[in-house]
């Protein structure tokens, strides 16, 4: 591996950070799409220079951007200027239409609102883009209001996988950030198997490429959030993670509780152990050690900052329950920022690199699996997402 590229989405634009394999000196490029919210950027595992970005604003809605040169230049797929005003557009890259057709779709009914009443389904934005493991032109999009879309032409057009909404969608409800589909895990051993997670609905699994879905939330408990703490759906799952070598083992940061499944989501058990708080947003797995996982504890559901004003990434080398605080190089006093669900990532270099982006605009990196940290950029707008790519 020759280096690493870190893709940072912020409230006011995107940044691309690059370094060699030592990961000591970083070049910072950006902002791209200045003034827009970049909820997520991610590169294709099949072609590291193919990047996708979700660009949105309250004013002008959703835009999908694509790069074929590692983020140096960007285009809106299918959005090129037309030579003649009456030519049809090549694509509709920002058109996320729920599929309500009688042949392929599902009726667009309602979901629960915060107060328990029913509320119409409305597209708001793309939270997460997950490129296919094998095809650079295939990419999944998790959106708010929660649904899963797929493009097979490099983002020019999108089709919903509507069966997901049939998995008790009327009982789903928005979390504080909205009813977002924020996590998409593609099983490397089975292209037909996908896991997704939604706040506040839970985790869902398909084993037939998205034709059917079922909730996989047994073992989750939400005593303070749901009338039935063990409900089949409605849990506020914040993030799930998987090591590619063991796709049956899933790790979850829930609203409260850190959880683990050893059977592909069929059942979950708590692994919060000695964490100072089991509330948090992101969770990640070490690139080479499937039992080494990372979380960033946050004080509570209303106090979105680290306990005791100390930013600590916690690492478990035992797949949960036993956690150690990683503090070297991280602020250990007067620190009251947050780390959002898509703002922690690992690279696949050896030793494994870990990256954490904060609401204070810093990206902290560790090039030694979390033992030592340093800010590789600071004073960016609030960070929404971080992804890391090892470059060949």
């Amino acid at each position: 591996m020759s280096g690493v590229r870190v893709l940072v989405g912020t409230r006011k634009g995107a940044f691309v950070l690059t370094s060699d394999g030592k990961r000591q000196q970083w070049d910072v490029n950006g902002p791209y799409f200045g003034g827009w919210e970049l909820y997520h950027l991610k590169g294709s595992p099949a072609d590291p220079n193919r990047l996708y970005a979700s660009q949105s604003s309250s004013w002008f809605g959703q835009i999908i951007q694509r790069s074929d040169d590692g983020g140096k230049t960007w285009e809106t797929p299918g959005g090129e200027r037309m030579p003649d005003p009456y030519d049809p557009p090549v694509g509709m890259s920002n058109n996320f239409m729920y599929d309500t057709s009688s042949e392929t779709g599902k009726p667009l009914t309602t979901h629960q609102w915060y107060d328990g009443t029913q509320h119409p389904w409305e597209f708001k934005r793309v939270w997460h883009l997950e490129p296919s493991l094998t095809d650079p032109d295939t990419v999944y999009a998790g959106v708010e209001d929660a649904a899963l879309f797929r493009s097979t032409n490099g983002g020019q057009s999108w089709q919903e996988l509507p069966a997901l909404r049939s998995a008790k969608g009327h009982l789903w409800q928005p979390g504080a950030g909205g009813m977002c589909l924020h996590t998409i895990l593609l099983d490397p051993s089975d292209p037909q198997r996908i896991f997704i997670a939604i706040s506040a609905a839970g985790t869902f699994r398909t084993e037939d490429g998205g034709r059917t879905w079922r909730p996989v939330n047994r073992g989750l408990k939400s005593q303070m959030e749901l009338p039935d703490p063990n409900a089949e759906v409605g849990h506020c799952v914040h993030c799930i993670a998987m090591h590619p070598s063991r796709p049956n083992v899933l790790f979850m940061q829930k609203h409260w509780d850190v959880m683990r499944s050893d059977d592909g989501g069929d059942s979950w058990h708590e692994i919060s152990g000695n964490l100072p708080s089991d509330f948090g947003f992101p969770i990640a797995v070490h690139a080479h050690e499937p039992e080494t996982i990372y979380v960033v504890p946050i004080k509570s559901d209303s106090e979105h900052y680290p306990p005791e004003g100390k930013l600590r990434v916690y690492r478990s080398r035992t797949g949960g329950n036993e956690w150690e605080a990683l503090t070297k190089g991280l602020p250990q006093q007067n620190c009251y920022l947050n780390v959002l669900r898509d703002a922690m990532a690992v690279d696949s270099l050896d030793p494994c690199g870990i990256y954490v982006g904060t609401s204070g605009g810093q990206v902290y990196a560790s090039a030694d699996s979390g033992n030592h940290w340093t800010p590789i950029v600071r004073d960016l707008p609030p960070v929404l997402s971080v992804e890391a790519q090892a470059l060949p």
Partner: protein
Amino acid sequence: MMIRVVLPAHLRTLARVDGEVKLEIEDQATQDAVLNALEARYPVLRGTIRDHVTHRRRPFVRFYACGRDLSHERPDAPLPEALTTGEEPFLIVGAMAGG
């Protein structure tokens, strides 16, 4: 007729245009006709000013012309004459919402 359109800065960047956009309108000049021509020329703007399907104006977008707010005019209502003569531009504006 040629209609002059002024886009907000973010949409100019998105459409990769500098300054005003000039659009040829063949039939009656209405909001719909202007936006149809704009989106046909710059497909990347589809969905950014009005909904893809319903064509309803996005909540944080306003339309001004000739010192008037046309945001709540009917989309098929004729635009002021000063727009059709090119004397005044059709302004597409991001609402003053902070942030």
